[in-house]
């Protein structure tokens, strides 16, 4: 049983957070021409799309943009994969000497980010990789640290954070979930 414990962020809150993250990215990357925004499927893709249009509105520059599906790169597929709903990665340009901003919804163990960084190298040799997440819930298992964080929410291991986006879930929200005893 999964129970919704509380709503950590609702639509307007999420919107404000994304605007702030966009400004931070611009501030840290004066040379936007050499920046690519890469969203990690599934939710990270949609967050990345919004950040892209926010940055383009603010800076009036056209941003390079791509998506990654890290399924083939996961280190845990032996135990962690029932029936994979794999989608293709779309990075239609070389990443050689590009400053990549990886965008995902929740930063947790760091394994997804590790897989995503590995996969990035199959598209070229980026100049740098920065990480942008909407929520950091802690419990890292790898030395991964985000450069841009929407919100830190320390959680217990029994808790989970689900980011909902309108495109998939028909609402924009960040939910704190808790697993029931039968799990």
């Amino acid at each position, binding site marked *: 049983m999964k129970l919704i414990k509380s709503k950590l962020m609702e639509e307007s809150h999420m919107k404000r957070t994304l605007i702030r993250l966009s400004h931070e990215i611009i501030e840290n990357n004066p040379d936007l021409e050499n920046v690519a925004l890469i969203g990690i499927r599934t939710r990270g893709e949609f967050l990345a799309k919004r950040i892209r249009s926010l940055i383009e509105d603010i800076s009036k520059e056209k941003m390079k943009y791509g998506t990654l599906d890290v399924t083939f790169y*996961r280190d845990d597929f032996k*135990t962690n*994969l029932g029936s994979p709903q794999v989608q293709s990665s779309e990075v239609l340009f070389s990443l050689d000497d590009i400053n990549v901003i990886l965008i995902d919804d929740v930063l947790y163990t760091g394994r997804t980010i590790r897989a995503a960084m590995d996969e990035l190298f199959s598209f070229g040799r980026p100049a740098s990789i920065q990480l942008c997440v909407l929520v950091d819930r802690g419990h890292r298992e790898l030395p991964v640290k985000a450069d841009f964080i929407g919100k830190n929410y320390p959680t217990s291991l029994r808790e989970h954070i689900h980011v909902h986006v309108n495109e998939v879930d028909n609402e924009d929200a960040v939910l704190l979930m808790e697993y029931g005893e039968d799990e």
Partner: protein
Amino acid sequence: MGSLSRKHFLGLKETPADDIKKIIDTGFMFREVLDRPVKKVPSLTGMNIVNLFFENSTRTRMSFELAEKRLSADVINFSASSSSLKKGETLKDTVQNIHAMKMDAVVMRHSAPGSILQLTKFVDAIVINAGDGTHEHPTQAMLDMMSIHEKFGKLKGIKVAIVGDICHSRVALSNIYGLITMGAEVTLCGPPHLLPVGIEELGVNISYNIDEVIEWADVLNILRIQRERMGIGIIPSVREYRSSFGITQERINQHQKEIVIMHPGPMNRGVEIDSTIADGEQAIILDQVLNGVAVRMSILYLLLSQGEEKEA
């Protein structure tokens, strides 16, 4: 268990449509990987796969090997010519030896129908059929179906003609099983004595008139005619075969229609197919080769992935 409904991949006779669909869908994901500068993913890191080829098939072996390497698996190749098989070692001995090396998967090519089923009784590893004689060659059929799907966006209702020597073909039966399962329409066209007894019971049409078949078909899958069969009483001559069943430029010109040309290779240019057709715009023969790697990656990936889905 992997992500397919069965542990092994032995044939398409009993493979459900859901599995075929999943293999093709995942195959397209790997097609994208194959377009990257670095055409390799770490999915099967640490997995050991042996390619057991008891009969020569350079193309199939290369395709499997490439697929395995692009999934980062560790690969061993074993072929009959380099083995003790000719010294009277039985299939069981050879296989048990290899089994003792703790392989995760065995890909086998063998001339005897049913040998792949025997293999499953000798080893615990996941078994993949790379062709068991004139029985099944399911990965070839999967790449053929993926190529058709790529062209038409679907398989259901697509009219596929398989042309040539069905009797001795290593790929016809799996293609028939798979295409029928996926709702395609299949017509077999070839010399009557090279169509096996009772094949129509599988739900295919039979025709001996290649021009009618070209008129009907969306896809022509042209089988290799082995030159060894010519002039030993089975096929009268190249000339006669070409005039009755050859896919010649002249014949295709006459029909003035869009038709997709496929061939599992290796081709006898100038016998069952003209060079200009094989290299022409309608041919997807080289796409088939690329899809072969992708679909084999897909099958290996889906079979070797296992366990319950957990929250990420």
